[in-house]
């Protein structure tokens, strides 16, 4: 169902919608704001598109959307991964219609133009019709490649704007979170090959994203899990644990369990407290690759719980991304993180993902419900503001970012919105 959007009183002055510790409800409901986000954040900025492990072989491809635009991420016959516009350069037919596949070329079903999996136009039927211009047509009308594309740790990011900051500048402190995930793999490689769960949410895409780093809601939104199934991995009562929230800058943020896990010095707390004897091959491979001490530290620290602006959430042993549809509708995509050569862990990871995530997950189904009700609540136009001041007096800045030792502080949200406002106002992020 579609939730009616509140009209925006100041559609073109987005900076007025964001204050240091509150934001105007229109940021979630306004179609004008949504259009501006698609342009400034999703087309001009860096967005996560795919992981290289999704297209391991030459000819493999997956289809995605960036800011509503259809794209194909293909590994060419030269082994290079390219982010290409999924639009025939003749008259615009969508070229690749499967979610994924393997093909040496893409043939447009409309008039039969054929493109190589590197994007080159290789075949034009009834070529005589182009006379002398045939070569020029073939030269000029290859598939359009995303103007900028870079990877970090196999995560492929793209920007549809030709100029801007580098991916490394954009990621900033968030590269450490990707490193932390890779540290859990003996080869420092991960695989997102088990498929993506797709969950249709009746709420704004930012609600889906920022909720992931909301350390305040778990005790309430997810009470049914803790009451019925098992207590949380560590307490969700902030005063009982050394769990931090951190604004990493550039809109990135995280809930960091590492201090608490390190204090307990216990491996696999983040993995249902799995005894290491239950994953002997994996632990042995970790120790062989990193040495016993580093392997122990990685298995204690666990994976990141980190939001990378705007559309990538490293959800511990899952990766989540979003496709915004309009101001009130979002598709959330979730894939488990698999570790090459660790089948004893991987099947378990699948089961853990199904348990927690997606449309029937013990956690995410309720986050989706709360997101939908939030969108409904925001249709009331008074009060105008959403309050994000929790913990603003106790934030401290250090070399890792802006930290709050109360995990229920809204520090991540403040960081997200500050960056969001800057990007929408036109400062390239």
């Amino acid at each position, binding site marked *: 169902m579609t939730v009616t959007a509140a009209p925006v009183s100041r559609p073109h002055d987005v900076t007025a919608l964001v204050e240091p510790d509150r934001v105007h409800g229109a940021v979630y409901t306004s179609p004008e704001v949504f259009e501006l986000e698609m342009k400034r954040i999703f087309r001009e900025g860096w967005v996560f598109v795919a992981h290289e492990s999704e297209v391991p072989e030459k000819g493999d491809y997956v289809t995605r959307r960036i800011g509503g635009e259809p794209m194909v991420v293909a590994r060419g016959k030269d082994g290079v991964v390219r982010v290409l516009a999924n639009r025939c350069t003749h008259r615009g037919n969508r070229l690749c219609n499967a979610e994924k596949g393997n093909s040496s070329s893409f043939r447009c079903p409309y008039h039969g133009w054929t493109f190589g999996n590197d994007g080159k136009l290789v075949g034009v039927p009834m070529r005589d019709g182009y006379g002398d211009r045939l070569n020029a047509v073939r030269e000029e009308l290859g598939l359009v490649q995303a103007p900028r594309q870079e990877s970090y740790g196999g995560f492929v990011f793209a920007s549809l704007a030709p100029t801007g900051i580098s991916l490394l500048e954009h990621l900033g402190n968030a590269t450490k979170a990707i490193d932390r995930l890779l540290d859990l793999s003996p080869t420092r490689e991960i695989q997102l090959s088990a498929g993506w769960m*797709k969950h249709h949410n009746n709420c704004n895409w930012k609600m889906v994203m920022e909720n992931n780093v909301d350390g305040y809601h778990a005790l309430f939104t997810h009470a049914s899990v803790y009451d019925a199934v098992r207590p949380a991995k560590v307490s969700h009562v902030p005063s009982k644990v050394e769990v931090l929230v951190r604004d990493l800058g550039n809109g990135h943020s995280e809930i960091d369990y590492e201090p608490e896990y390190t204090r307990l010095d216990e491996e696999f707390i983040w993995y249902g407290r799995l005894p290491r004897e239950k994953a002997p091959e994996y632990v042995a491979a970790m120790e062989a690759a990193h040495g016993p001490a580093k392997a122990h530290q990685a298995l204690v620290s666990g994976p990141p719980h980190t939001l990378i602006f705007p559309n990538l959430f490293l959800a511990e042993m899952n990766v989540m991304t979003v496709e915004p549809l309009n101001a009130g509708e979002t598709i959330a995509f979730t894939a488990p993180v698999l570790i090459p050569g660790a089948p004893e862990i991987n099947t378990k990871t699948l089961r853990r993902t199904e348990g927690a995530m997606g449309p029937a997950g013990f956690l995410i189904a309720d986050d989706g419900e709360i997101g939908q009700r939030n969108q409904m609540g925001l249709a009331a136009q008074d009060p105008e503001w959403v309050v994000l001041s929790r913990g603003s007096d106790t934030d401290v800045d250090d070399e890792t970012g802006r930290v709050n030792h109360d995990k229920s502080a809204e520090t991540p949200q403040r960081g997200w919105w500050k960056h969001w406002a800057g990007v929408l106002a036109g400062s390239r992020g």
Partner: protein
Amino acid sequence: MAEPGTVQEVVRVQPADVAVDPAVAGLIYLEARLADEARYSEWESLWADDGLYWVPMHPGDDPEVTLSYIYDNRRRIKSRVAQLNTGTRHSQTPPSVMRRTISNLEVVARDEDTTTVASNFALYEYRYAMTVWAGRYVHRVQLTDAGPLLVAKTVHLVNAGGALPTMSFLI
């Protein structure tokens, strides 16, 4: 599942075996009604000790290497029901109002005490608006001294390949 053109496929184009034991059909309909009416614990009591409740993302998926929407062993079925029974499973508080119809029952396998029945279903879920779910069920039912028990239920949703709305009720 048989590939088109194989011997099994030739067999499968024979008229369906619709001689479903009434006790088996009765369990399938009871399971549907208890799910529709959010009678969670009674629904759970229909399951055998090694029950498996599976909603794959694609028909041919291998759950060992691909992700499913739901892949509940008996223990997780118990947890799912316990969560629904708390009354604070927000996505089912209040429970969706539902009715489903099941048709086209075909016996696709049977041995001494176990029958596998495939069927089509249409499920009408009303929450904030009406959502229609549809697909194919495969129920594996064991006849025991204590009555029929559900050993496995697989749900192939027609829209499994697309983005699903929240599905925290019993599908």
